[in-house]
């Protein structure tokens, strides 16, 4: 169990470092795949199987594919090279990242989290989540649903054929 945790943690951290350090945008996108997979592995070990699957479904199946598509379509024709990230706002970037790191570090130290959080239970989290969504959190669930439908219709309208 511990070995699995450290493997997934290493996968997440190392691929996140690749995302940060490579200047090829597509490499970052492909490395992000492994970051997200490692994260979902950590979720499984923490007993949140449903969240782990949703993580892959939304972030890998949806967001990441959209990201890669976007980068590929902005590929400048002729040069044959994928876009490379520039070096702008380095000072403010470092400042913001460092500040966030200190903030999170202090919060995690004070939160007194069990580390590593390894208490996977044999019971799945699917049923409680389903019941929760249909009872206590019905209104937020419905509002999120309507919001997504509006977004879908808007996207279809924008992408649809315009009659001039």
């Amino acid at each position, binding site marked *: 169990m511990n070995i699995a945790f450290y493997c997934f943690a290493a996968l997440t951290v190392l691929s996140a470092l690749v995302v940060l350090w490579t200047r090829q945008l*597509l*490499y970052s996108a*492909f490395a992000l*795949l492994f970051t997200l*997979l490692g994260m979902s592995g950590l979720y499984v070990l923490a007993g949140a*199987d*449903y969240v782990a*699957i949703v993580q*892959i*479904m939304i972030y*890998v*199946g949806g967001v*990441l*594919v959209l990201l*890669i*598509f976007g980068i*590929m379509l902005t590929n400048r024709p002729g040069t*044959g090279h*994928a876009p490379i990230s520039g070096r702008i706002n380095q000072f403010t970037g470092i400042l913001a990242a460092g500040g966030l790191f200190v903030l999170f570090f202090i919060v995690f130290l004070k939160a007194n989290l069990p580390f590593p959080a390894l208490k996977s239970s044999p019971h*799945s989290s*699917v049923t409680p989540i389903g019941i929760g969504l249909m009872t206590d959190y019905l209104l937020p669930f419905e509002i999120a649903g309507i919001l997504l439908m509006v977004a879908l219709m808007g996207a279809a309208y924008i992408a649809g054929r315009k009659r001039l």
Partner: protein
Amino acid sequence: MIAFLFFLVFLLVYMVFAVYAERKLSAFIQDRLGPTEIGPYGMFQTLADLVKLLQKEDIVPVKADKWVFLAAPAVIFTAIFAGFAVMPLTPTLQGSGAVVGVFYLLTIVSIDIVGLLAAGWSSNNKYSLLGAMRSVAQIVSYEIPVGLSVLCVVVLCQTLDLQEICYQQGIYIRTLPVYSESTNYLFGIKRLGIDMTEVGGFLTWNVIRMPLFFIVYIIFFIATLAEANRAPFDIPEAESELVGGFHTEYSGFRWALLFLAEYGMMLLVSFLGAVLFFGGWNTLFPNIGPVRLADWTSGMPGTIYGNITGAFWIILKAFIGVFIQMWVRWTYPRLRVDQLMHLCWKVLTPLSLLLLFISALWKLL
């Protein structure tokens, strides 16, 4: 662990014979002979082809992005192979008994899209890139009808676990502690009052428990055909337009791996269709009065006989699914891109939404 090793070896052996079967089948449909030279009836043709492929040079184009190019086939195959983890092979043998079963399967298979994009982009070839883009557009669109048709079954079975779905469709439903009190009624309608729990056979499969599931299965079959990039949905490969699609630049071992992934996907969706609609590892024959056909052709869960018969039935059903996929491939012409999107968004998706609604109501009958 046993399931892992079994599926890995099984997939390799299956691929060798599936390619042979496909060539013989296409030859039969087109009134040709197919492979005849090597071995009896040309049986060892694929083995010879495989040896040739493994000997070939693994060419990486000079202008290709080397690391992404080399890694992409592995990502594609791993994504598909990971799907087999939750597939129940016999009443007791299953790689992982994860409760999120079928949801995991649909999700992990979608990682394959990233692999396809990586393969197409890193080849640095416009045909590969076009093939990858077509392929991804197609897979992303057809995930919706697949998801909705699977949801129809999940609504009726009220579980995501594929093993539980299997148990529900046979005579051994009461051996599972969760269902020790449940009863299978004819067509799933309690008011008819016809108890089918002891009868089993095909009469308790999901297609009979909810007769409209046959239409759901057709939607599932068409959509998974598109997910596997098989003809008539093979515009990502469309030899006459795109040379070879996203795998134009691959050769030797890596090309074999991509091929293995394609045949693996065919097998995976056939297995899934068998589990969701046609009783999984349950036998075809029902118990008719004193003629205990169901008891004779499927052993108790946990016994050796139960394992053998379970594996036999599910593999037989999956192979029939693969056979129909091949049959369709050599019979129907390829769809155009606009026809493809029309079929997905204007036919399959609304129809599966309607069927999902009816399935939810059926549960209340």
